C-alpha cells in the first residue's frame, strides 16, 4: 500500500451525496473516479479498466443498473483483474445473492461504517494485487522453462551442424521457414493447427538432421560429388535419425517425440513417392515432414555448401516449383510461395544478428577441437611408449 503511485477506484452511484461520502472515505489513500450511472461506468472501464484497481458499485440506478454493469464486466473479462464491491441499501438475501452470482467480490449494505469500508476496500485490492503478482511469477517461470528447452534443442542440433562443417544457421533457417509455412497453411484454412502444434513442429524441425552424427565425417564433409556408394551411406541419416528418436525409452507418447520422429525419418520423402527411406507417397507423408522438407530444400539451395554455390532466392523458388529439386504437395508449396518474400527478409535479418555469435561459437569449437586432437595425439604417443 506504500507504493508511490496511488491506486485508482471507480465509484459508481447516481446520488451525489453517496459518491461524496465514499470519495471522502477513500481520498487519502486512493485516487477516485466517479460515474453517475452504469453507462458512464462502462464507458470509463472501456477506456481504462487496466488502471482501475476496484469498483464500488450501487445497484439501483437510472440508465443501466449495477447488475447490468456487473454482467458486462463479467462478459468482457474485466472482473478477472478488477474486483467489484457492491454497496446498496438493500438487505434482502436474494438481492445480495444475485450480486455475488454476477461476480461481485463483496457486498456492503447501508448504513456503513467509514473505517470498515476502507478496510474492506484495502483488503480486496491487496488480495487482487497478490494474485496478479503470483500470476506474473507463474507465467515467467513457464516462459523460462520453455526457453531452456528450446535452448537444449538448439544446442543439440548445433552439434550436428558443427560436425557437418556448416554454420548453425541452417537449423535456424529451417525453423523460421517451417513456422512461416505452417502459419500460412492455417491462415489459408488448409489445415487446422493450434499455436501449440506450430510451436512443436518448428521446435522439432531443428532435429531433422540428427541422424548425420552417425555418418562418417569424410563423407559428410567431402567437397565435390559423392559416389553412388557414399550417397547411399549419406541417405541412411534420415532412417538413423528416426531410430535415434524411436529408441527413447518411455517417451514415445510425447507429442514432441512423435513429431521429431516424423521429421527425422521422412524429411527426404517426395510427394511423388520417389523419396527415401520408405518411399511414402502424397499425404502418407506427415504434414510436419512435408513442411520441413520444403524448408530444408529451400535453405540448402540458397546457401553455399562445400559442394555447391548458393542460388539466388528467385532461382531457388523457380527450381522448386518446376520440380527440378524435390517434389512437393502443391498446396503447401503455394503457401510457401505466398510467404517466400517475408521468409527472405526474416532470414536476412536473422543472419546478420546471428553472425557475431556464430563467429564466437566457431572460435570456441575450434579451440575445443584442437585440444581434443592434442589429447588424442598424446594418448597415442603414450601407447607407443608402452
Amino acid at each position: 500500500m506504500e507504493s508511490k503511485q496511488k491506486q485508482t477506484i471507480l465509484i459508481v452511484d447516481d446520488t451525489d451525496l453517496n459518491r461524496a461520502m465514499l470519495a471522502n472515505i477513500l481520498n487519502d489513500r486512493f485516487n477516485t473516479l466517479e460515474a453517475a450511472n452504469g453507462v458512464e461506468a462502462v464507458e470509463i472501464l472501456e477506456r481504462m479498466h487496466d488502471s482501475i484497481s476496484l469498483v464500488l458499485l450501487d445497484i439501483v440506478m437510472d440508465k443501466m443498473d449495477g447488475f447490468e454493469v456487473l454482467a458486462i464486466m463479467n462478459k468482457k473479462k474485466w472482473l478477472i483483474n478488477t474486483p467489484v464491491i457492491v454497496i446498496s441499501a438493500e438487505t434482502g438475501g436474494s438481492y445480495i445473492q444475485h450480486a455475488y452470482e454476477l461476480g461481485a467480490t463483496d457486498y456492503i449494505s447501508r448504513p456503513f461504517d467509514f473505517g470498515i469500508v476502507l478496510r474492506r476496500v484495502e483488503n480486496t485490492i491487496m488480495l487482487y494485487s497478490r494474485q496478479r503478482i503470483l500470476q506474473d511469477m507463474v507465467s515467467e517461470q513457464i516462459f523460462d522453462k520453455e526457453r531452456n528447452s528450446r535452448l537444449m534443442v538448439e544446442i543439440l542440433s548445433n552439434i550436428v551442424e558443427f560436425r557437418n562443417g556448416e554454420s548453425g544457421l541452417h537449423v535456424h533457417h529451417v525453423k523460421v521457414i517451417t513456422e512461416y509455412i505452417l502459419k500460412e497453411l492455417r491462415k489459408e484454412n488448409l489445415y487446422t493447427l493450434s499455436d501449440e502444434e506450430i510451436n512443436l513442429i518448428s521446435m522439432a524441425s531443428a532435429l531433422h538432421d540428427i541422424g548425420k552424427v552417425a555418418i562418417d565425417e569424410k563423407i559428410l564433409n567431402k567437397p565435390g560429388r559423392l559416389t553412388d556408394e557414399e550417397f547411399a551411406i549419406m541417405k541412411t541419416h534420415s532412417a538413423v535419425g528416426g531410430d535415434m528418436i524411436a529408441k527413447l525409452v518411455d517417451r514415445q507418447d510425447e507429442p514432441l517425440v512423435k513429431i521429431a520422429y516424423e521429421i527425422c525419418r521422412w524429411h527426404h520423402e517426395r510427394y511423388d513417392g520417389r523419396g527415401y527411406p520408405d518411399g511414402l507417397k502424397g499425404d502418407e507423408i506427415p504434414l510436419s515432414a512435408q513442411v520441413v522438407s520444403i524448408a530444408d530444400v529451400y535453405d540448402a539451395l540458397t546457401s553455399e555448401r562445400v559442394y555447391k554455390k548458393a542460388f539466388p532466392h528467385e532461382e531457388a523458388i523457380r527450381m522448386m516449383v518446376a520440380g527440378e529439386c524435390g517434389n512437393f504437395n502443391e498446396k503447401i508449396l503455394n503457401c510457401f510461395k505466398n510467404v517466400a518474400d517475408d521468409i527472405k527478409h526474416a532470414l536476412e535479418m536473422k543472419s546478420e544478428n546471428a553472425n557475431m555469435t556464430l563467429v564466437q561459437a566457431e572460435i570456441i569449437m575450434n579451440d575445443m577441437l584442437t585440444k581434443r586432437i592434442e589429447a588424442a595425439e598424446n594418448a597415442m604417443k603414450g601407447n607407443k611408449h608402452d
Partner: protein
Amino acid sequence: MTENVKQMLEAAGLDVTATLGRLGNQEAFYQKFLKMFLADTNYEQLVLACDAKDNEQMFKAAHTLKGLSANLGLKDFNLLCCQMVDLYRENKFEEARDVLPSLTVKYQLAREAITKYLG
C-alpha cells in the same frame, strides 16, 4: 456539539451517536454530508413520482432516500422509506404512496433540525 444540539437532533429522529461513530467521530464530515442532504433532490422526485403515480420512479427515489437516511442516521425518516420500498416490492403501490404524508412529516422535522444545527 453541545448536549442541547444533540437532544434537538435526536428529538427530530436523528441517531447522532451511532452516525458519528460510523464517520469515525469526525463532526466535520457529519456536517458536510448533512449539508449535502439539504441540497439533495430525491425527496422532491419522490413527491413528483407519487403525484404522477409513476411507481418505477417512486421506488427509485424511495430506495435512494432509504440508503441516504440510513447512512446519515435519519432514523425515523428511514423507517418510512423502508416501508415504502417494502410495499412497492409487494406490489402494493397505492399503500406505498399512502406512506408519503407521514414520510413528509418526518422529512420536514429532520430538515428543520439540521438547518438549525448547521446554522
